[in-house]
Every structure is written in structure tokens, then in C-alpha cells.
């Protein structure tokens, strides 16, 4: 179909003025992908689809949402009531809001799997360091967007989550007070905070689109990694398939499967037992009472545990910052020439432990603190950092398996 379209006169007219044929060839039909990429390689495409879904559903929600903490006659706030109105009165409002709220969790789920793929198969290594680094920037912006968005319903969790995070930035030495005031527009989270968070929540996804463009541009320059993590000749037809139609069809199939799961959650279990939408957030924000147990949404809990693992406030904050910042350094900490964990027996064990470790950190961050969980969290935090440090020394002791000749 694409070929037939490219033969029409109107295409020729557009092509002469935009170079469209060259773009289609370089990005789709003549962009080559290793023929042995497995199903773990579909999550990038799914993530992009979820980003589009989030932007579209968000645009429609913004037509009804009102960012104001002003109290209403019912005793709630304008923002809280407008969300309830979307749920009860606006045509299909419930569906669009659930698509958006569930979409936030699904976006992180997909992106975390996507990152795990990159770590397991060594996709962050030379020459793909910048793809990884741009990817970490994407993760940080996603976390920012999710944090801003979470305040908008103006429920108890919204309010106290925002209070804790803005206080985190407020604890930065010297500039802390200024940053806290810039974020909150006052001395505590309030109406000015809600307004600016709505503005930033709209801005960040647009930044994401631009940066995802850079992520993909870098990918198309150096091409995809593969499960064996070996260098291949991309000009040799026996090694590769073209992105379109082979990978686009595979991705489309994966997207269809993914959407079945997504739709199941949206229609039958949108709150996901309090993991995707926290029950406490249906209680309107009250600045005079902290809920008995507050925890961020699941996708931020691993970092929350790292924060909680230290008794000195500044150290906790620094550790949490470092746990994200160290991701940027991953391509430079790991100097092994072998990419894929398939041929690195020690790395394979370490990286699988790392995935389990992050899940343990997440579990600890989601639960109320007890002595035992605090200790578990501290051990998990130690392993998190140890993993990255150990990568520096690993090539000296690890005996890698022989790499295959070709794919």
C-alpha cells in the first residue's frame, strides 16, 4: 500500500517540496533492524503508543478539569468536584479519565520493561550510550509529569504527596527555600501550586515528544542492538529485516495484545486494588490532616524506599538523587566488551538480582514502615548502589562465554 501511494502524482508533488520519499525510506522501509530481535524489543513501540494515548486523553480531560483549590458550597474544592463531574456527568468522562489514570501506570510499566531489556542485553553500550542517556532524561520527565498530574485531583494523596516532594526540594542546601517557593508559589502547597502544576503537566508531555524524537533519531543512526549483543553488518541482507513492514507488523501485533490487557484494566479494574488509583485520593485534600499511611504511586516507590532508608534527611535526599543520577553513568561504569547478559554469566545473575531488588524496593516503599521492612529496604538500597559499583570491577574477574559468529 505504501508502495502504491508513493507512485502517485500527488506524492511526487509533495516529495519534490519536502523530500518525503527520503524520509520514508530512511525511517521506515530502508531502516534496517537485526532479524533476531525478540519480543522484548516491542516495548519501545508500545511506550510511544501509550504516550500518544496519554496526550489525547489528557487534551480531552483538560476541556472539563478546573485547576482551583477554591472551596465549593459542598465543602469540597473546585478541582476535586470537577474530577467528580468528569466521572459522573460528562459523557464518557469516566472512560477518558480511567484511560488517562491507568495509562500513567501502564506507561511506567512499559518503560521499566523497556529499560530492563536495555540493561539485560547491554543496549546502553557503545555506540548506543546516548540513546540510553536520552532515555534516562525521558524517564525523569515522565516522573515529573506524573508528579504534577497526581496533584490535580486535589485529594488527600495528591496534597500530601506534593507536600513531601516539594519539601524534598526545599531541603537542598542554600537554594532550597527559593526552589520550594518557586514550586509552590507560597509557603505551603495550595491554590497557586495547583495552577502551576496543571500548566507544567500540560508542558512536560510536549517536551517528551520532542525528546523521544531525539531518542529515535539516535537509534536510527546506530541501529538496534540484538539479543546476542553482537555487531552485525547492517548492509548484509541476511542479517537484517526492514523496519517496515516486518517490525511495524510485529509491533502492531504486540500493541494489540497490550491493548487487550489495558482495556481489561480500564473497564474492569481501573483502581487495580489501590495500586493505580489510591483509595485515599477519593478523600478531598485537607491541609490540617495527614493520612495515616502515605505512599507514592507504585512506580515511584523504589526511589521512595531509598529516601526512607537513611536517618539523616539530607543523606536520604542525596541518595535518592544519586540513585537516579547513577543511571546516566551506566554506559561508562560497565566497561565489558560483551554486551548481552547471555554471554556474561556473572552479569546475568547480577542484573536479574537487580530487577528483583528494584521490585523489593518498590514493595517496601508502598508499605507502612516497620523495623523489618526498614532493614529489608536498607539492604535493597545497598544492593542497588553496589550493583553499579561492582560493574566497574566485573570485567576483571568475569569469564565471558564465546560470542556467536553471526545472527
Amino acid at each position: 500500500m505504501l508502495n502504491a501511494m508513493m507512485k502517485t502524482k500527488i506524492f511526487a508533488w509533495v516529495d519534490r517540496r519536502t523530500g518525503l520519499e527520503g524520509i520514508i525510506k530512511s525511517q521506515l522501509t530502508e531502516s534496517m533492524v537485526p532479524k533476531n530481535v525478540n519480543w522484548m524489543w516491542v516495548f519501545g513501540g508500545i511506550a510511544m503508543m501509550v504516550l500518544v494515548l496519554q496526550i489525547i486523553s489528557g487534551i480531552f480531560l483538560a476541556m472539563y478539569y478546573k485547576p482551583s483549590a477554591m472551596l465549593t458550597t459542598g465543602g469540597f474544592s473546585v478541582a476535586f468536584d470537577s474530577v467528580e463531574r468528569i466521572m459522573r456527568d460528562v459523557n464518557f468522562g469516566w472512560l477518558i479519565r480511567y484511560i488517562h489514570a491507568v495509562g500513567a501506570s501502564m506507561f511506567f510499566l512499559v518503560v521499566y520493561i523497556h529499560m530492563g531489556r536495555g540493561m539485560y542485553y547491554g543496549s546502553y553500550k557503545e555506540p548506543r550510550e546516548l540513546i540510553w542517556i536520552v532515555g534516562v532524561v525521558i524517564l525523569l520527565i515522565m516522573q515529573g509529569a506524573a508528579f504534577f498530574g497526581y496533584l490535580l485531583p486535589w485529594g488527600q494523596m495528591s496534597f500530601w504527596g506534593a507536600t513531601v516532594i516539594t519539601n524534598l526540594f526545599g531541603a537542598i542546601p542554600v537554594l532550597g527555600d527559593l526552589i520550594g517557593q518557586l514550586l509552590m508559589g507560597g509557603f505551603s502547597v495550595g491554590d497557586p501550586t495547583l495552577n502551576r502544576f496543571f500548566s507544567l503537566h500540560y508542558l512536560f508531555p510536549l517536551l517528551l515528544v520532542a525528546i523521544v524524537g531525539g531518542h529515535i533519531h539516535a537509534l536510527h543512526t546506530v541501529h538496534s542492538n540484538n539479543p546476542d549483543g553482537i555487531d552485525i553488518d547492517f548492509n548484509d541482507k541476511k542479517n537484517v529485516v526492514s523496519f517496515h513492514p516486518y517490525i511495524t507488523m510485529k509491533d502492531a501485533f504486540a500493541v494489540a495484545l497490550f491493548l487487550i490487557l489495558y482495556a481489561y484494566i480500564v473497564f474492569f479494574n481501573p483502581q487495580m486494588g489501590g495500586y493505580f488509583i489510591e483509595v485515599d485520593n477519593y478523600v478531598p485534600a485537607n491541609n490540617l490532616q495527614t493520612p495515616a499511611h502515605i505512599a507514592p504511586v507504585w512506580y515511584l516507590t523504589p526511589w521512595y524506599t531509598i529516601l526512607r532508608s537513611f536517618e539523616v534527611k539530607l543523606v536520604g535526599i542525596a541518595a535518592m538523587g544519586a540513585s537516579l543520577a547513577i543511571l546516566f553513568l551506566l554506559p561508562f561504569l560497565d566497561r565489558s566488551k560483551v554486551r548481552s547478559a547471555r554471554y556474561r554469566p556473572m552479569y546475568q545473575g547480577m542484573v536479574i538480582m537487580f530487577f528483583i531488588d528494584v521490585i523489593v524496593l518498590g514493595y517496601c516503599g508502598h508499605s507502612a514502615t516497620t523495623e523489618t521492612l526498614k532493614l529489608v529496604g536498607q539492604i535493597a538500597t545497598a544492593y542497588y548502589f553496589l550493583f553499579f559499583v561492582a560493574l566497574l570491577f566485573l570485567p576483571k574477574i568475569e569469564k565471558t562465554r564465546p560470542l556467536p559468529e553471526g545472527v
Partner: protein
Amino acid sequence: MTEQTDHSRRNFLYVAAGGLGAVAGGATAIPFLGSMLPAADTLAAATTEFDVSTVVEGQLVVVQWQGKPVFVTHRTPELLAQLDGHDEDLKDPNSEAIDAVHAMWMDTPEKRKTRSIKPEYLIVVASCTHLGCIPLYKPSSGRAEWGDSVPSNWPGGWHCPCHGSFYDLSARVVNGSPAPYNLHVMPYKYTSDTTVVIG
């Protein structure tokens, strides 16, 4: 006019023009960033008046001052007695670490212990000095009423649900808490026997 280009002159102009452009760009950021700081009406100082006699003995009331929560606690003689004997477990028993935890009237060892103008009424900012949550009031000592959510030698006081900071009944932070300081003391004064003006 000569054929030759004066490179040093050209470089100077490049740097000068570029530098001025950068300065102008930076200056443009000032109004935008400035607009994000608290607006004039938010800054306008506000005071809160409160009648402490409305607080039942042993109970706690949270009032609002400049958008921030403030604890007003009515401590019984028994609760005041619970302030003694654990100074070595406190990070800052005399409230000297920073200005915000200290007040001019804390001039005797007794006042530094009770942290209040009238011993029975403790009035402090209710935001945990760790990350701003409001701690839960757990006045009775020991674990009888609170289970293992508090340490075994619990003197009675506040427990922050967010990250597990502990404060005693004068809102002094207990060792091992992530919170660095005692709960802040804001300016307040009594205008009559029971009326207090906060701010």
C-alpha cells in the same frame, strides 16, 4: 578598505554580540521566574487568633496559620511529667540547633523543656521538619496503646506516619528520626488569659 579581514576585530564583535545576547536572554528569565514566587496577597502577613480554653485537657487541636497547620496541645500535669528523663534520647533537648526551634522567652531550663509560654499549652508548627507531613498525636507513654509503631521506651508525643520521625510531648525530635530538628516554634502571644494570637 583593504582586502584583508581583521580577524581579531571580527572575533571581538562575535563575542561581544553573543555575550550581550546571553545577558539579555538571562535577564528575560527574571520576570518569568519571578512570577513563580509567592504573589503579594500570599505574602501579606496574616495572624490567627485562638481561644486555648476550647482545648480539652490532654487533647490536641490543629489550627491554620498562613496556610500552615499549627498544633495547640493542652498538656495535663501527667503529660508534662513525661517530658523528664529522656534528654539523652533527644537530638536537641534545649532547642538550640536553629533559630526556628527557639524563642526569646525560652530563657530558663524549665521553659526550654516545656517549649511553651504557659507550660500546659504547647503551640508549635505542625509540619514535620523532615518532609512536612503532620505527625500523629500519641500522648500516652509506652507501647500499650500504640503497639510497635513506637519505640519500646516511648515517652509519649508525636509519630510522623510518612517516614517514622518521633517527637516527645514538647515536640523535641527523638534520636534515630529522619527529621533533623524539633518542630518549629512560631511567634505567638497571649492577649488575654486564654486568647492567643499566632503570627
